[in-house]
């Protein structure tokens, strides 16, 4: 369980119809590592994360969570076939995903959002699930919003609740899909603060973000993606200080104005 990488992606290709959005992605994320994905909008960062959580089916290549193939299994003939819904769900449950648009369940309170996974997926009793859920909400600074509905929260609060919901499943890794992109600027900090805490606790994370300062600070490794391919990857000080590729340098110039 502890040996080997947390997430492995090999030769990943993804098409939307005729559009070739991921063109051969290879990456390995070690346990406790924080990988930050940067690159222009439409470069494939989001699609990559969605493939890893199998919210998108991929067309070619392999994705591994620990030692388990994500979304597919090998049949008797050794060919990869789409895995059963139950098996796919089991693998998904081991990863947490945080979305740009939060996607909290609007008909449930904050606390109900957080215990939904433990109760429905893990089969815990409501009473068992509530104390750890409260502890998580306390950790993300929402202990006074347990019984609020998502519409009654600010964007930053909603995103922190969404992070707590993902953490409630005690995931092996967390995937962040531009978690602050739809937030008002003054609310970005509180979400980044929570993520900083997670990284410090040794959570394995893949983060797609446009927050370059945050990327530089939190990342163990930064990966520049463009047109569905990895342009380069390296330590943050190298990527931000002395990018090897002109494409990266140009992108960084543009986002830093």
């Amino acid at each position: 369980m502890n040996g080997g990488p947390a997430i492995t992606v090999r030769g990943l290709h993804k098409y939307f119809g005729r559009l070739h959005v991921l063109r051969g992605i290879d990456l390995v994320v070690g346990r406790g590592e924080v990988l930050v994905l940067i690159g222009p909008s439409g470069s494939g960062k989001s699609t990559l994360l969605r493939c890893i959580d199998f919210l998108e089916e991929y067309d070619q290549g392999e994705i591994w969570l620990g030692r388990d193939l994500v979304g597919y299994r090998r049949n008797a003939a050794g060919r990869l076939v789409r895995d059963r819904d139950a098996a796919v769900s089991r693998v998904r449950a081991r990863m947490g995903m945080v979305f740009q648009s939060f996607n909290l369940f609007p008909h449930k309170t904050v606390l109900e959002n957080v215990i939904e996974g433990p109760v429905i997926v893990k089969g815990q009793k409501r009473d068992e699930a509530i104390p750890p859920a409260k502890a998580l909400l306390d950790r993300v600074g929402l202990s006074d919003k347990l019984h609020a509905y998502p519409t009654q929260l600010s964007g930053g609060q909603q995103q922190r609740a969404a992070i707590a919901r993902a953490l409630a499943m005690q995931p092996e890794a967390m995937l962040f899909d531009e978690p602050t992109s739809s937030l008002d600027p003054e609310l970005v900090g509180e979400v980044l603060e929570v993520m900083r805490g997670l990284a410090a606790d040794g959570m394995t994370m893949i983060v797609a973000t446009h927050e370059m300062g945050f990327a530089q600070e939190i990342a163990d490794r930064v990966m520049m993606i463009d047109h569905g391919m990895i342009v380069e990857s390296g330590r943050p000080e190298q990527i931000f200080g002395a990018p090897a590729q002109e494409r990266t340098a140009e992108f960084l110039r543009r986002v830093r104005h």
Partner: protein
Amino acid sequence: MGYNWYFQIVWDYREVFFRGAEVTAELTIGALAISLSLGLALGLCRSSRVGFVRWPAALYVELFRSTPILVQLVWIYYALPILSGVQMGNVLSAAVGIGLHSAAYVAEIFRAGIKSIERGQMDAAKSIGMRYSAAMRRIILPQAVRRMIPPFINEFATLIKLTTLGSVLAVNELLHESENLINNTYRPLEVYTALAIVFAVIIFPFIYLSQRLERYWRVRG
């Protein structure tokens, strides 16, 4: 102008309306049960990504929406027994016919309601490890049903009024009882007016309830 209204007759024969209302209620409940359960199943099938699940449901919906319900009722009562040997009584035939017809519309309400829920909700449910069926049941449908309440109440009101077509199969529901009464009293205007009022009294509370629910759910997201 020169007509002398005589509404006393309605009161004198009130038993007829009560009796008719009882049968109308039976028809409504029976048809509603069929309409809801079949409609939900069809709506889910029409929302499926799998073609051979989706198209039979689509065929059903289009077939029942594009043919007159009167023909459907007559067909179920008179033609079905010839073809299948299954003879249902007139009340059951009417309930089944109206239910099958209404199911096509309820299916469309379910489908539109499910479709109206943002994709991110299914993504989020899946991302915490929920299976498709659990996500539908716990996350998508509860939200979709709230959005479906207004069109559904609409369909419900239509369904209650459609029960009057039971009269074609000689079901003693409100309209049929009223027509019998008219034949005895020669007072069509009073009796039809009273009939309209009876339907309004039955249907209005549901419309009112739906408006209250809508307002209540607007607050709770």
